[in-house]
């Protein structure tokens, strides 16, 4: 199972309290994880990736295993610890404001 941690506003929107676990078939990539996430929670469509282009929204970043994966190819394999469920895939809202 893949573990996904969302920012607070998206947890509220999806009505989830904490970490999400997803069953991802095949290769564990950003695209596969986000596709599975949006299938389970359609309300998240358009909030992490743009509709249509599926590009990451500008103020969203992806992290895992203390690495910034925001600029990795959506079809690149995620770290093995994520694929094994040992580490979560983090969807993070960029820090802005002061």
């Amino acid at each position, binding site marked *: 199972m893949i573990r996904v941690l969302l*920012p*607070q*506003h*998206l947890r*509220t*929107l999806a009505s989830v309290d904490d970490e999400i676990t997803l069953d991802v078939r095949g290769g564990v990539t950003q695209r596969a994880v986000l596709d599975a996430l949006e299938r389970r929670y359609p*309300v998240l*469509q*358009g*909030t*992490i990736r*743009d*509709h*249509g282009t599926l590009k990451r*929204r500008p*103020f*969203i970043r992806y992290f895992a295993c203390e690495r910034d994966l925001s600029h990795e190819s959506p079809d690149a394999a995620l770290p093995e610890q994520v694929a094994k469920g040992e580490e979560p895939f983090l969807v993070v*809202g*960029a820090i*802005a404001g002061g």
Partner: protein
Amino acid sequence: MSRVRVLAGTKKGAFILTADGKRKNWKVSGPHFAGWEIYHMKASPADPNRIYASQCSGWFGQVVQRSDDGGKTWEAVGNKFEYDGPTGTHQWYDGTPHPWEFKRVWHFEPSLTDPDTVFAGVEDAALFKSTDGAKTWTELSGLRKHSTGQKWQPGAGGMGLHTIILDPNPKRMFVAISAAGAFRTDDGGKSWKPINKGLYSKYIPEPTAEVGHCVHRIAQHKAKPNTLFMQKHWDVMRTDDAGENWRKISGNLKTDFGFVVDVHAHEPETVYIVPIKSDSEHYPLGGKLQVMRSKKGGDKWQALTKGLPQKDCYVDVLRESMAVDSLDKCGVYFGTTGGQVYASANEGDSWTAIAQNLPAVLSVEVQTLAR
């Protein structure tokens, strides 16, 4: 006894204020969608329990919420606003071509007769329609594809379509875009005509241009649909021929910059605005918050100040932030960027803050409920 429900969208959530017809004791519920910008909420005239809300965030984009029980519970519905076909470009602030990009919904206008039909005015300027209760959206692209579209330019707040007026004639609608101007359709949204003759905007290269005027808000009384009142960037204007010609009605106003304009529920020639000092100083003149009322359809304006702060007041009143109820006497409401919602139960003669410390208010709509 009648009731009133005020829908206030703010920078950090939605608030719903309710009172009986006396409009003295108010109950505030919220924040709904805490932490999100609520650009606009509006209820269906055909089903007062059906409310549409535009929820958005710079991080997470656009979410559309719908309530079927008067705002007690909400359901996220369709947020897919896809422009129809190739989008082309409009002008950027510096005059260079800039591709059309969807950013947010500025305004929902529910159908006068069908609760499932609702129009959305969006940034970058376009008009969308849903006929399934906001689950899916289709662009009425005749507007964006108008031959002047490539000349449209954003105002300081973005290129938003903010005003949608559904005329009693079901084929006719009016919309306004910052900073493109006002447009009218007479065929249900297939084709559009700029209706900006008589507007004069000295801050644009051609002050009487067909498009390019920064229209802030337009209001109509349904009993006199060919008469529209406009708060332009500067200038308060009116038309009596459905926008074919406009004339200035600023009259004795000390400043005619502002954002809101609305019409009394029972008197089509009684108009309300809130003057703001200038386009570079968005607060009331002299720190005194005044609503100006004309009972003659413009030109002669009376300051309404009772109950409003008359010193050290430096809030703004944004374009979606004024509304009226249809009780007798007509109630008038407006919200400020300082988080106040002011209400008058006597046509503006006196005012009370029915909420004082909300986040900055972006929009105010009012429902008059049978019970």
